[in-house]
């Protein structure tokens, strides 16, 4: 079946969420990925929302991470400190972030463009809970369209921590041991991070793209895994369930 970039990214993300894991998601694509994963791969995936909803049976896609849907037939309707402290205690495996810029260490800017904090050229929504989740969950993932302005070695503002300056710098700053960016899923490729240097590293290339495309659309030099896989395209089952059950109104995947 044909598919678009958003559908591809959601399907890849869904495959990365294993059964029995916990994931804090926002609205939109991350929530769709978690729902898709539950329906195909990980029926026992536990979805949390930062306003307090825990393991709801999601009847529709939430509009807000605090709306009624986020604790519809949930196992707990708790609080923001409860969810954030569960992350801080090390009980949450995954989260997803968005952002306007990302660098080679997976640091993310979702705050502003410009060099004057009090008068930014462009102000974005800011952290919300993004910094918290990126700091405290074990593995952070991102789904984004890839281009050389977005993938840059000079962030205007580090909103949420990746591996900071690489190596152990993230942990030396006081962030919990063993946490950090895990997968960056773009329309062109899937990236991880080098174990030692924590530099972004291409793991697989999506159908229809080349190494050259991936590097040309990135503002810094990418590392390459020893063996670069071909990303598996969405299966018919993934697409059918995503389109019919997860996002039937195509709010997220487009029309």
């Amino acid at each position, binding site marked *: 079946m044909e598919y678009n970039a958003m559908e591809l990214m959601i399907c890849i993300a869904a495959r990365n969420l294993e059964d029995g894991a916990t994931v804090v998601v*926002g*609205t*939109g694509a991350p929530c769709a990925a978690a729902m898709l994963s539950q329906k195909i791969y990980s029926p026992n995936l536990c979805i949390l*929302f930062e*306003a*307090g*909803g825990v393991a709801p049976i999601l*009847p*529709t*896609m*939430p*509009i*807000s*991470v*605090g*709306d*009624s849907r*986020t*604790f519809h037939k949930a196992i707990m*309707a*708790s*609080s*923001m*400190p409860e969810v*954030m402290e569960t992350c*801080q205690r090390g009980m949450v495996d995954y989260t997803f972030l968005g952002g306007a810029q990302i660098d080679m260490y997976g*640091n993310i800017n979702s*705050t502003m463009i410009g*060099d004057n*904090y*009090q*008068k*930014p*050229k*462009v*102000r*974005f*929504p*800011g*952290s*919300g*809970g*993004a*910094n*918290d989740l990126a*700091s*405290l969950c074990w593995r952070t993932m991102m789904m984004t369209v890839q281009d050389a302005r977005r993938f840059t070695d000079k962030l*205007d*503002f*580090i*909103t*949420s*921590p990746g591996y*900071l300056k690489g190596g152990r*710098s*993230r942990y030396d*700053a*006081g*962030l*919990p041991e063993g946490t950090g960016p895990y997968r960056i899923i773009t329309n062109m490729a899937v990236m991880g991070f080098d174990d030692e240097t924590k530099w972004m590293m291409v793991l697989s290339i999506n159908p229809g793209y080349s190494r050259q495309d991936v590097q040309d659309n990135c503002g810094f030099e990418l590392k390459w895994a020893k063996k670069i896989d071909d990303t598996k395209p969405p299966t018919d089952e993934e697409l059918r369930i995503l389109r019919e059950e997860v996002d039937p109104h195509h709010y997220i995947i487009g029309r």
Partner: protein
Amino acid sequence: MALGTRDNDTEGAMLSGKNELFTDPDPDKARAFFRNKSRSMTPKLSQIKDVVRDMIKDGDYIAIGGFGANRIPTAIVHEIVRQHKKHLGFAGHTSTHDFQVLIAGKCIDRCDVAYIIGLEARGLSPNARRAVESGTIKLTEWTNASLSWRLKAAAMGISFIPTRNILGTNTFDHSAAKMITCPFTGKKYAAMPALFPDFAAIHVHEADIYGNCRVYGASVSDFDLAKASKRVVITTERIIPHDEIRREPEKTVIPYWCVDAIIEVPYGSYPGNMPYEYFSDEEHLKTWLKVERDPEELEIFLQEQIYGVKDFYEYLNLNGGIEKMKKLRAIEYLINNK
């Protein structure tokens, strides 16, 4: 951007966020206030107009309960705008529609920011964005958990709480947090300063006339907010008998002594979502985002929706009244009853 600034204090060179701390985290000053706050269980039924007039001064630092456009005390927010309160400080802990109404009313001049210009999946608020980009309000940068924990520190009666977020980022640099070291493990922590707002308004499902409250669904940070704030107003979908509170004391989430005034405001979270009661009015929120694009259109809209109506009930009627509420209830309950 430079990462952090260094303090010259005697504890050694520790990192320190460089933006302004808008409120005083001193727990003894807060205690001195709380010492004189009434603990008497007396009836506290009030009126929206009176409460906003008497309990908020220009320049106060305020906080609004709920999250995004969910379980927000809209009647209080509108009345603040209607009474032209000025120079307010604001706790922007995923405050979306509430912040956006207040900034449209030009009530706010400083803000602790976690998330204020977005409206989540609905997009961004053009007017809030203009306000922030033009530099007309002073900002200090935080995150949702940071503000949650700042309120928790205040609710606990301590001046700071150590946390493991925001470290190493520009979010820290533009906060007013400080880095500290654990005396047991040597680990680094962000110290989050206690946040004691002057005023908070919270919308709940049920309360008795004394202010004992029940909330259903995600509680966000509201239980800590009620304790941390010096003056607290509750709007409630329903007043319930005091005996009902005593029948199930497990359900009381805000005790009466936190509360200075209670107002029964059915549909009080409109146009926001009230869990188990009614869903958000997405059409109305979309209209807000649309008119906000043009400052003049926004003024006309504010005139029509807020300045030009005498109270929240007139506003509800203007937007469809009970018939609209019935539709929003159907959406909340996933019933096809449009």
